[in-house]
């Protein structure tokens, strides 16, 4: 009873006070209860893919948004996870439950390698140089078709479980775990260091932060999460093909990340949950089938013109305000800060407003 009351108090005071946190809670519950309420195989299939790509987008955001290492070759990690897991489960006949972790580990190794090579690069140089790595890998795959399956990829993989609902829950719970893990990481002291590295690497180094070590760690973590999603993806669609390494996928994740709003983690996840089902749904119409990528690009372009910082920060600014004194967030309807009691909307007298602020 005590625990229940304590839990309710936590919920009311920490989650329900902020519309954004309430939204996240509602989204989580909806995600977990969906198969019970609406058991349609097609919808579950789309949502499973959405969950897998959400992990991928969130991992990109940790690297590009928080640390400022805008990676144009994130597909490398996705592909590394997919191929490693596929090769191990098919050639060595190991259960996919084990190979997924091996895929994530290999991807982390790749991430460490790429991070090591790119330590001295900055800004646009880093973006454009990282674009090269998945393509080098792709070239090698095509050059050794006996090992990699060439253009056809590695097919005939086993799924993690046979039922549609089971696969959905694996993807959804995996997604929630990874995304909340990344979010917690980004909110911790570690995340603050990452912010510092993005904003001013020199100043961070001058403050005694070993920036190369942090950058390598972030590359490895982000790559591990991306490799995990790649392995899930390979075992879900039961094929690991060259499409997991293509430029299109790298660009796709950049679009998701920036469309949702960088350095938020939940932004890219929201973007995937909006854009991926939307494009699939549009693609299911016969008239739109061929035009779906076009519509997708036009939507992205139009939305960006109105919210250049991305979707999630825009929505958050609409439903919440920041307390001018303690910098905590409050619902837009609050007149007083819920934590420090400072007035949120000070009525500025008309004369003062005309003079401007000084």
């Amino acid at each position: 009873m005590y625990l229940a009351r304590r839990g309710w108090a936590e919920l009311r005071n920490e989650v329900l006070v902020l519309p954004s946190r309430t939204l996240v809670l509602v989204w989580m519950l909806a995600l977990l209860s969906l198969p019970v309420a609406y058991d349609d195989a097609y919808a579950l299939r789309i949502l499973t893919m959405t969950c897998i790509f959400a992990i991928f987008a969130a991992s990109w955001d940790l690297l590009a948004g928080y640390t400022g290492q805008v990676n144009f070759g994130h597909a490398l990690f996705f592909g590394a996870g997919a191929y490693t897991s596929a090769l191990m489960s098919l050639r060595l006949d190991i259960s996919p439950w084990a190979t997924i972790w091996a895929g994530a580990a290999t991807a982390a190794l790749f991430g460490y390698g790429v991070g090591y090579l790119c330590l001295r690069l900055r800004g646009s140089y880093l973006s454009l140089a990282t674009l090269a790595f998945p393509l080098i890998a792709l070239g090698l795959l095509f050059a050794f078709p006996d090992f990699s399956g060439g253009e056809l990829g590695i097919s005939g993989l086993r799924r993690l479980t046979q039922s549609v609902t089971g696969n959905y829950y694996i993807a959804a719970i995996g997604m929630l775990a990874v995304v909340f893990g990344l979010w917690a990481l980004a909110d911790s002291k570690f995340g603050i260091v990452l912010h510092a590295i993005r904003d001013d690497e020199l100043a961070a180094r001058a403050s005694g932060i070993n920036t190369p070590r942090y950058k390598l760690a972030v590359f490895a973590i982000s790559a591990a999460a991306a490799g995990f999603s790649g392995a899930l993806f390979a075992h879900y669609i039961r094929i690991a093909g060259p499409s997991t390494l293509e430029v299109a996928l790298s660009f796709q994740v950049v679009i998701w990340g920036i469309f949702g709003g960088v350095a938020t983690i939940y932004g890219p996840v929201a973007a995937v949950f909006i854009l991926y089902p939307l494009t699939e749904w549009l693609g299911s119409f016969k008239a739109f089938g061929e035009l779906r990528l076009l519509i997708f690009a036009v939507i992205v372009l139009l939305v960006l013109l109105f919210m250049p910082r991305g979707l999630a920060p825009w929505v958050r600014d609409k439903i919440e305000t920041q307390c001018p004194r303690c910098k905590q967030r409050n619902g837009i309807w609050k007149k007083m800060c819920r934590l420090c009691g400072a007035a949120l909307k000070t009525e500025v007298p008309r004369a003062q407003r005309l003079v401007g602020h000084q």
Partner: protein
Amino acid sequence: MLQDILITGLINGGVYALLAVGFSLIFGVARIVNIAHTAFYMLAAYCFYALLVKAGLGFAVSGVISVAGVTLASMVCYRLVIEPVREHEAAVLIATIALALIFQELMLFSFGGHYLGIPSTLEGAVHILGASIPYQRLLILVVAAVMLSFVWFVLYRTRLGLAIRATANDLEVANLMGMNVNRVAMATVAISVALAAIAGVVVAPVFVVDPFMWLAPLVTMLAIVVLGGLGSLKGSLIGALIIGYVEAITVFVLPAGAYLKGAVALAIMVVVLLARPEGLFGVAFEEER
């Protein structure tokens, strides 16, 4: 084989130089990483195809119209899409990606996904040192050389060029000196896309035209630009020749070279970046913290 390598490398290098110099110009002046750059090249190739094969116009007429049309389209795109979000670097980036996707899908929708062939502008071949070069490839080389000299002339011998170089050097100071920075950026976009469009038109008869033809040169072009140093025109030119020759050597010498040519070119870029993070001729970006 040696002659083949020499000539193929030179011709591919010329095409890459046309693309890379344009990209470098935009990056230098407006700090835009223009992913849609090669999409304009694809657009020009399609335009050329439509005017030449479908409408039956002459080679020269359709070439000029497609270059002019694509340049105009790029200026409209810049005004409508890029300029409103100029302050947000990330937004500009995915705006250009979205533009490229839109062009790709439009072409896919209007011409279909299959490969389209364009008849050669010039028939016949010339024999030099035992290697035969079709006139079409020679034309590519001549056009590339002429256009690059023209760009050099514009940049270093005209007032517009002075404005472009000044803006690339320091945008704010150029603005304070009374240059209309927006108009300079617009002119740069026009010049650079015109270069890409010209490359598209001359290359179309040699390569096949399809809606995804922008991806491969995009990656090579980015590798060249990074290799040579972002924003450096000399670097882009030399980088283009290096990558052109590396690709030619890979294709002719290694087994399975056609698959590996991209990988080898990109690996060279990575190696150069390891030694010199700012590229061969890039300025060290110490002050741009």
